[in-house]
């Protein structure tokens, strides 16, 4: 993978607004042609990072490199980077085709050629018929496509997308996720997308940087982030998870998380790989779909068991989400395939279990950045 050239290199970039550090010593490399996601809760600094790439904000420290060239002092209108704004920012006084042709006209492309290329871009986003309309005459989804065409028509080195789907209805949103991927594949431009929606990031991005309070807490492909989160924050932010805590102990070739009341067996090799020192507190992260739920633990039951009472069953169509209350007041989430085990009822006593190999181990320190 390292032979893929980098387009953007972010080196130790920090940005402060007054007393608030929006972006805190971030270092990242974005590769040629990839769909890169910046994921995090609101206020984590992802939009500020994007705006620095576009040139609307200047870093207080660190460097931004595009194709090896330092972007410091390069005005937004001189950067070969285009942005799709969250609100689309279409010019209300121009028709769709003139909106799309705008960037080319500013480059000095002649009107006829600019319009021809604008029409090509509109074809790419499947809006050929609406060239003469004004933005006010378009639906949300159509506006989004115009904004995309306008940002792509100049063939930027990198396309920046700020929460591209947040203003759309749920149904159009999942459609557009795949559409954006198709378009990115067609044009081959590097996409950097900012989103707070983990599902969106997982669906679209090749690689994701998870940000928390201005820092990158984990960088990886969606599967790695989901299956092997590097911190409790990432585990909680990406999908739902059950956390089991304890002090890490090795006994022979077995490993355990030991708590006052419980002892969880974990995968010894994974524990060794995690780099968590014995005697330190750690968390086992188990996704709801990896949990098993039975009435009586038989011989085939998983290693780690805990009993509780079914509090709630939510029917999701393809699956059921079961909330199980534990005696200590906490609760667990179990995801059951719809066809299996449909007979549980709220109030019923059950035993919930998980296997050591289905847990990801993370250090139980929710502050600071985890090693990348």
């Amino acid at each position, binding site marked *: 993978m390292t032979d893929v050239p980098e387009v953007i290199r972010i080196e130790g970039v920090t940005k402060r607004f007054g007393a608030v550090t929006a972006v805190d010593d971030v270092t990242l490399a974005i590769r040629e042609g990839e769909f890169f996601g910046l994921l995090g809760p609101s206020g984590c600094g992802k939009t500020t990072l994007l705006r620095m790439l*576009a*040139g*609307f904000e200047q870093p207080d420290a660190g460097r931004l490199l595009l194709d090896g060239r330092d972007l410091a002092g390069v*005005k*937004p*209108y*001189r950067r070969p*980077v*285009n*942005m799709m*704004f969250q*609100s689309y*920012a*279409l*010019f*209300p*006084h121009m028709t769709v085709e003139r909106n799309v042709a*705008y*960037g080319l006209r*500013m*480059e000095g492309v002649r009107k006829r050629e600019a319009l021809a290329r604008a029409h090509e871009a509109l074809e790419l986003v499947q809006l050929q018929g609406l060239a003469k309309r*004004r933005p*006010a*005459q378009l639906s949300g989804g159509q506006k989004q496509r115009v904004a995309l065409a*306008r*940002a792509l028509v*100049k063939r930027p080195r990198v396309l920046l997308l700020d929460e591209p789907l947040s203003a759309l209805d749920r149904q159009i949103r999942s459609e557009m996720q795949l559409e954006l991927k198709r378009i990115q594949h067609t044009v081959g431009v590097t996409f950097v997308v900012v989103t707070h929606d983990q599902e969106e990031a997982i669906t679209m991005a090749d690689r994701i940087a998870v940000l928390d309070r201005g820092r990158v807490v984990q960088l990886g492909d969606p599967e790695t982030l989901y299956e092997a989160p590097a911190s409790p924050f990432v585990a909680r932010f990406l999908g739902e998870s059950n956390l089991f805590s304890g002090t890490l102990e090795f006994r022979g070739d077995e490993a355990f998380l030991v708590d006052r009341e419980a002892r969880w067996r974990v995968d010894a090799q994974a524990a060794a790989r995690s780099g968590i020192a014995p005697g330190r507190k750690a968390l086992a992260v188990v996704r709801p779909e990896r949990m098993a739920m039975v009435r009586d633990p038989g011989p085939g039951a998983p290693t780690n068991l805990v009993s509780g009472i079914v509090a709630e069953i939510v029917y999701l169509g393809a699956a059921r989400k079961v909330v199980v209350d534990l005696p200590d007041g906490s609760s667990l989430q179990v995801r059951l395939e719809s066809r299996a085990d449909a007979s549980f009822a709220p109030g019923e006593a059950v035993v919930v279990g998980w296997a050591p190999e289905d847990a990801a181990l993370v250090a139980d320190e929710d502050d600071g950045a985890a090693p990348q």
Partner: protein
Amino acid sequence: MRRGRVGSAALVSPALLWWAGLLVLPVGLVLAYSFFERGVYGGVVYDWTLDNYRRAWDPLYLGVLGFSVRVALESTVVSLLIGFPVALFIATRPARWRTVLLVLVILPFWTSLLIRTYAWIVILNDEGIANRALRELGLVEGSVRLLYNEFAIVVGMVSTYLPLMILPIYAALERLGPELVEAAADLGANAWKRLWTVLVPLTLPGIAAGCIFVFVPSLGNFIIPDLLGGGRRQMVGTLVQSQFLEARDWPFGATLAVSLIAMLLALVLMQAWLGKRSSREEAVTRAV
């Protein structure tokens, strides 16, 4: 239903009284006077006539009107050239600074027009601050005539009515927000192109309002041309004033006043019609 209508009539009656007493009545009186004759020793003779309006077409008075329109136009253009950048500067400051700057813009409005106008006499006279500064800089020898001419009148008008240009443009820029300008920059437009392709077209209603707010009072003002123009060149405002107070020809003064009001009203109605048409177009396109 009926009671509601009576109730709302009662609610608006103070405003109606205000409007009737301070606008309709005086303007109606002026309109009425304009159709009467002047008595031999001043005063008004209540005989209907159109002579006043015929007299208003005299080249002498048309010349005064032409000069007034020219000064008002110059004042408007200069105010726009200063006001737009100032409004843009304020609108692009952080929110906490904007209020302070806006108060600074409005502040001169709270001092008397007379005092401000006299201040310009102090600044612009042959031995005033402006001339001394020019001499110090070695730009002129002796002194330049800055006072009692068209230049001084325009300076006075601009300094008086500039806030009326800045405020509507500022409001339009504020409503526009930074995003479209950023989008233009992102797509390769430098500052100059952003100004002409995004900022100006999208704040045109504010610009038009500002221009009217400056043009209308500049055309009718009589204090500034009197004090800063040295009374050499008449403007419509000073002419009306002198007809009433010096020539004691109230009917003809009223005629000139009515003509001025009619002209300005036509201008304002035209702007309102244009504004309505563009907003209706927008509403139509929204509905589609």
